[in-house]
């Protein structure tokens, strides 16, 4: 095994975030990610790989010789703050099977394709209410605060049984926790507050049956720490990702008027459009971390040694020309289903059926109800969330 304490590779380039986007197009993955598998060094000197090819990325995410367990020596943290994110009793995302599967299966029931389909009328109501309120306030409105965030926040709060009144608190904590540039102390403090909140909420719901938090809290086979970290993950993942996909997708469509017109003319294209937007934008732009537990030769030829960290760059892989043909172009009519925006392998996003339905309804409703939708500021003034693990927009001023 390569030890963490070996001196870094003399020639290895440093792996840092945020990785700047090309000046031309803030929707394209950072140029630093557009190259073959590259061996790099982390801030702490540990060797790591950046893997960007579609087949390599798929292999890293689905081959069991790569572990998602952050407690294994060599697991890559691209900044000190990332280590502080991991709890003593990790959520399922940072465990391997069989532990991962045991925990994950306790939560899958609420995210089944059929179950989520039954939520469509409720989600449509939430979307319409948010849009009504935004229209009532008048233009210019901030799509991020008035539409993109409230929708997934309300939905995940209802599913979990978390009081929506607390959303300002947990949106603030999420933002801190997901800030790639935040220091270890800052991330740890935010995680501790967040965790204390969830632990208390779970304790108060023990014995109840309604909502995921109550159901997890009432299980004999979970510790309070496991309940808190897993519920917290769902809360965090459930609103940040969809919210940023919604605002970023809207902006991309406004920048591609011909695609927007197509979607307006044929609303039934929305399902495919959402897959294409997921592929094109791939908002988890920092890559997905794994550690090799055996030596592995990747399809592209790179050999990753046991104990080396790997970042699977799903954003770059999703532009693969061989897989998607003209991968650099946004085309809402293409079959983009093989994208890796939700990851791949057993860790593939648990909430993806919900994310899909939320995005489909939010985007379809927005383009249907606001035919005059347009940016209320010059494009150059739109601020992108480059510092966050989840790419998105700080605000999106719109008129209609």
């Amino acid at each position, binding site marked *: 095994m390569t030890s963490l304490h070996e001196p870094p590779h003399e020639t290895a380039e440093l792996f840092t975030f945020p990785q700047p986007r090309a000046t031309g197009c803030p929707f394209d993955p950072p140029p630093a990610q557009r190259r073959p598998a590259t061996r790099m060094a982390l801030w702490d000197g540990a060797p790591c790989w950046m893997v960007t090819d579609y087949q390599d990325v798929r292999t890293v995410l689905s081959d069991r010789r790569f572990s998602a367990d952050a407690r294994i020596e060599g697991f890559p943290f691209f900044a000190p703050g990332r280590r502080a994110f991991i709890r003593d009793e990790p959520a399922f995302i940072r465990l391997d099977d069989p532990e991962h599967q045991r925990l994950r299966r306790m939560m899958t*029931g609420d*995210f*089944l*394709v*059929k179950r989520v389909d039954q939520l469509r009328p409720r989600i449509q109501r939430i979307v319409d209410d948010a849009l009504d309120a935004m229209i009532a306030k008048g233009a210019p409105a901030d799509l991020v605060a008035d539409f993109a965030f409230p929708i997934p926040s309300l939905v995940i709060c209802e599913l979990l049984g978390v009081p929506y009144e607390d959303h300002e608190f947990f949106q603030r904590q999420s933002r801190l926790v997901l800030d790639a540039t935040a220091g270890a102390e800052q991330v740890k403090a935010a995680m501790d507050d967040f965790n204390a909140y969830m632990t208390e909420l779970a304790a108060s719901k023990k014995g109840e049956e309604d909502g995921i938090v109550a159901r997890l809290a009432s299980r004999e086979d979970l510790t309070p720490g496991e309940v808190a970290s897993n519920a917290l993950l769902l809360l965090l993942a459930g609103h940040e990702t969809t919210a940023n996909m919604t605002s970023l997708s809207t902006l991309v469509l406004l920048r591609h008027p011909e695609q927007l017109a197509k979607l307006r003319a044929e609303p039934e294209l929305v399902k495919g459009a959402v897959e294409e937007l997921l592929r094109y934008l791939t908002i988890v732009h920092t890559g997905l971390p794994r550690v090799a537990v055996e030596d592995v030769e990747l399809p592209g030829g790179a050999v990753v040694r046991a104990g080396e960290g790997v970042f699977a760059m799903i954003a770059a892989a999703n532009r693969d020309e061989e897989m998607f043909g003209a991968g650099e172009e946004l085309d809402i009519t293409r079959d983009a*289903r093989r994208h890796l925006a939700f990851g*791949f*392998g*057993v860790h*593939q996003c648990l909430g993806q059926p919900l994310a899909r339905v939320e995005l489909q309804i939010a985007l379809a409703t927005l383009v249907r109800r606001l035919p005059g939708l347009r940016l209320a500021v010059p494009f150059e003034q739109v601020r992108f969330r480059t510092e966050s693990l989840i790419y998105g927009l700080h605000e999106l001023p719109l008129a209609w």
Partner: protein
Amino acid sequence: MHVSVDQDRCCSSGQCVLAVPTVFDQDEEEGVVRLLDADPSPELDEKLRTAAALCPAGAISLTEVAR
């Protein structure tokens, strides 16, 4: 095409259900894949290949059957 599924590997992503709802389903509790039809009609071959490629857990196996 003959279809088989490995429920132990399944991570309940639901990709198969979205791709071919007449062949795949998910159980109510944990979302584990359920096979509704192990020998679907040949018109579905292409869709089945997509489902197998989409399955993140490698839980779907296809075998060509001689016709």
